[in-house]
Structures are given as C-alpha cells and as structure tokens.
C-alpha cells in the first residue's frame, strides 16, 4: 500500500451545494415560516399580527380540531391496523399454503390482484368509490335494492360516512403490507418451521412465534409508513366527503387546508400543520431509535 494514498475525502461538499440550497429554499425555510405563522393571526393579505401561543390555546379548546384527530384514529385503524393484520394472515396463507400446495404462479396472481388498488392515485381511487357509492344511481345502492335491502347515503349520512371512508381505505391499502410481507417471508429459514412441526406446534403457534417474529422489521416499517400516510390523508377526504357532512369526516390536513384557503385563518391553519408535523417527527424519531437499537441487538 502506498504511504500516501490518494485522498478521496476532500472538496466533495461542493456537490452537496445545489441539493442543500434547494432543500433549504423549498422545504426548510417554508417549514420554519409555517411555524412562525402559527404564532400569528393572519388572513393572508394584510400584515400578520403576533399573538404568541393563542392559536395553540384555541386548538386545545376547539371541538373541530379534536374531532379531526379523533377521525384520524379511525383512519389509522383503516389504513394501519386492519391492513397490517389482514396483510400478515394473507401473506402467510399465500406464501405457505397456496404457493406450496397449489403453485407459485397462482399465489403471484392473487398478490398482483390484491395489490392493484395501490397503483391508483388516491384521488382517483376516491373518484371511483364516490361513483360506486353515489346515493341516487350508484352501484352499491342498486345492488342493495336488488336484494331488497335499504339503500343508504353512504358518504352523505353523518352516522356512517366515516365507516364508508374506512372501508375504502382498507380496500386501497391491503396490497402494500401484503407485498412487503410476502417478500419478507422469503428470507425466513424453512428449517425453523420444520423444527417447530417436530415439536408439535400447530399452525397458529408457528404463525405467531416464527412468522411474525422473523419478519418483525418489515412489520415495523409497514406500521410506521402507513401511520405517517394516515396522518397525512387529504386527497381521499377532499374527493369523497370534503370533511362532511358537517365535520363527520374532517381530518387534520383537510382542517388545515380549510383554514388556509377557505376561511383565511392562515395562522390557525399553520398551527394545525405544525402540530401534525410534530407528531410525525416524533413517530419518525421513535422509529429510527427502535430500528437502530434492533440493529445493534442483532449485531451483538
């Protein structure tokens, strides 16, 4: 080896300049300005006035604000919890049973079919479902009518609108965990299952102790990613219900949008967006921590 090896590590920061400046101008500065706006009362036209934490206090007592986060919990159930659980069982079933006993080809056809909704822009998925759920001539009410059941106003009835949105999101979301979990299962050592079978473990025991345990990192990624996506849900709500009827399906991002662009409450909109950001950053930090701890443990 040469005494003075060719230095590779100098002067590279120049290459970072365009990307870092762009990031600063398009993301960091707008984000900081948004945080700044959240401490003001501003209609977007005249000068903003500094009001300190008033917007945050207002949020704490605002029923619509809490309603939007409560609805977000429903959305999390529909986008994270249900699809992850269904995805786990479906992936294990397709991978174990269908691929082994019926054929790999059949398993991939099902996987592709279940994944299909995921290729749509969420806004288009919303348009499709709004068409199906249309109260007067929609397909679902037509079907219900054929079998003698009561038609409903699926998106226009405050009592059921959120459940309709949830159902649509489950339909949209299932493919994502399924595809990731099926890929993850490929790296599970089949000998683990054989050893467990010798020990007399049944299917459910193997599922819990081997499958879930072995693909833990992927489950973790799916849960985090879908959690973040559900906190950001906007287009679906915009297309399906516009947060209504009343505020029955309002979510934080739509509530922020309304304040920004419909009610000219820019300061309050910025407050809601800032609170959303804090929650998402906390989740991400938690994720990085747990993941690096997991990697350390595996390395040890």
């Amino acid at each position, binding site marked *: 080896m040469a005494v003075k090896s060719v230095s590779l590590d100098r002067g590279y920061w120049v290459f970072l300049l365009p*990307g*870092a400046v762009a990031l600063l101008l398009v*993301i960091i500065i707008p*984000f900081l300005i948004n945080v700044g706006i959240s401490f003001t009362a501003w209609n977007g036209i005249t000068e903003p006035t500094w009001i300190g934490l008033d917007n945050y206090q207002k949020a704490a007592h605002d029923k619509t604000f809490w309603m939007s986060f409560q609805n977000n919990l429903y959305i999390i159930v529909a986008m994270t919890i249900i699809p992850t659980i269904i995805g786990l069982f479906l992936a294990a079933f397709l991978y174990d049973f269908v691929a082994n006993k019926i054929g790999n080809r059949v398993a991939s056809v099902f996987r592709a079919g279940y994944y299909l909704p995921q*290729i749509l822009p969420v*806004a288009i998925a919303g348009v499709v479902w709004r068409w*199906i759920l249309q109260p007067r001539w929609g397909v679902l009410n*037509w079907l219900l009518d054929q079998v003698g059941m009561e038609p409903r106003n699926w998106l226009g009835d405050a009592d059921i609108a959120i459940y309709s949105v949830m159902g649509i999101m489950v339909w949209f979301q299932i493919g994502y965990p399924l595809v990731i979990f099926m890929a993850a299962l490929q790296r599970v050592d089949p000998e683990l299952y054989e050893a467990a079978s010798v020990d007399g473990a049944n299917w459910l025991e193997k599922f819990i102790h081997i499958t879930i345990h072995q693909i833990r990192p992927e489950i973790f990624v799916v849960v985090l990613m879908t959690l973040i996506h559900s906190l950001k849900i906007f287009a679906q709500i*915009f297309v399906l219900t516009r947060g209504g009827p009343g505020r029955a399906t309002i979510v934080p991002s739509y509530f922020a949008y309304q304040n920004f662009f419909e009610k000219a409450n820019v300061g309050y909109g910025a407050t809601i967006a800032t609170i959303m950001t804090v929650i998402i950053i906390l989740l991400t930090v938690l994720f990085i921590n747990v993941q690096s701890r997991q990697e350390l443990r595996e390395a040890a």
Partner: protein
Amino acid sequence: MNASLVLERFNKSLALLLLTALLIVMLFPFAIVTINAFKTPAEYASNGPLSLPGGLYTDGLRDFWDRVDFTNKLINSTVISVSVAVAGIGLSLLNAFALGIGRVRGRVWFLIFFLMANTLPQEALAYPLYYFAKSLGLYNTRLSVIIVFSVIQSAFGTYLLTSVFSTFPREILEAARIDGCNKVQLLLRIVTPISRPTLSVLFVFFFIWTWNEFFLPMILLVSTSNQTVPLAIAVLQGQHNMDATTSSASALLGILPCVIFFLLFQRTLTKGITAGSVK
C-alpha cells in the same frame, strides 16, 4: 383415495374459493367502472350497472375527453412527472455523491436532515410555498410544481442513493483517481453508469409518485389548462352535473394511465417496493 387426500383437496378448493371471492371484491371497482364507461346513459338507466354494454359506446369517453381537454392534462402530467424525475435524480445523485462517495464531514446529520424533509407533511409547507410562488410570479405554472417536487423527491432519493453509494467498491474509486480522473469525471463516467439500475428504479418511482400527487399541485395550479390528470378528474367530478356513464368514463380515464405504467414498470416497481421497505 384415502381420507386425508380428500381433505387436502377440499382444503385447496376452499382456499381458492375464498381467495377468489376476495379477489373479486378487490377488482370489482375496476371492472364496474370499465364496463359502465362504454354504455349509453339509457342503457345504464334501464339495465343497471351490472349488465354488459350492448356495444362499445364511446361517446361518454369522448365527451369527457373533450370537455376537460384530456390531451392537455396528459401533457401536463407527463411534462411535470418527467421533469421531476430527471431533476430529482440529478439532485439526489449530486447529494449522494458527496455523502456516500465523498463521505463529507457531518454526513450523518445531513442524512437525518434529508430523511426528516422526506417525512414532513406537505401541509406544513403549503402556505409559504403558495405565497412564494405568488410573489415570484411562479403561481399557476407547471414550473412551480416541478421545482417543489424535484426537491421533495430528492430527499428520498438522496437517502436511498447514499446507502447504495456507501457500499460502492472503494478499489474502483481509488483506481479511477490514480488514473487521473477528477471528481466530475468520477461522478459522470464511473459512479453514474455503475449505479444505473438503482437510478432507473428511482426514475420510475419519482415519475409515478409525482403523477399521483394531489395536494400541492391543487394549491399551486388553479387554471384548468395547467392541471394534472388526477387533479382535473377529482376537481371536475364535484363541479359538473355529470350522469352515471360520463362519471365512470372520467374515472376510467384516471385509472388507465396508471394501469399502463404498472404493466410497463411492473418488474422495476416490485423490486423497488421491497427495496424501499428495508431502506
């Protein structure tokens, strides 16, 4: 035939039956939108949504196509998505070259920065971006959307490419340097060609993600002549009093490009989805 064989065959049939039932539920919206896009309004009214169309009636599709100037929307979406994919890859490549190959000081912090930028909700950028765009005269231009999304996508691209580049064989880099390659040549002649497979995955990702975007394009593009495909279809469905078959024609036009992309890029995408999961 013994009992266990019969049982196994029964299990297989039951499994296929259940999976097929679920498949039908999952694909039903696609099928129903497709068949009704080709019906006349009268057919829909008299035979209901489940009947097959009597003929290939394309007036609904053509009518909607003309009404929204769909050609223009396709051009807008394509121009925006391709530009973002190219510019986003350019930025990611430069960043990752400095962070992954050059290993500049503080790279871990830069990476955390890019990762954070990638997870920020667009709502927290929307109003300042809208305000900037207005004061710079970029409001309601495709360029504004191209700039914003090139940077947003590059945050993810930097993260992914840096982890790929940090495992780049050092011997190749050192050999190139000894042969008198400067840094720009190193990037353009050595690193970029070798990482072309990853770059093509990124291209497909950026293209499709940008195509599917809704929130910021809606805020930055007001006039219909600048709008993208998902935007035009989603915004229009509330405004026009469309009948059932024209509505389904509009939904079908929204679905079709994505199905085409999926078929074209299927292999790259499946590779990418799983690669993204362990990033």
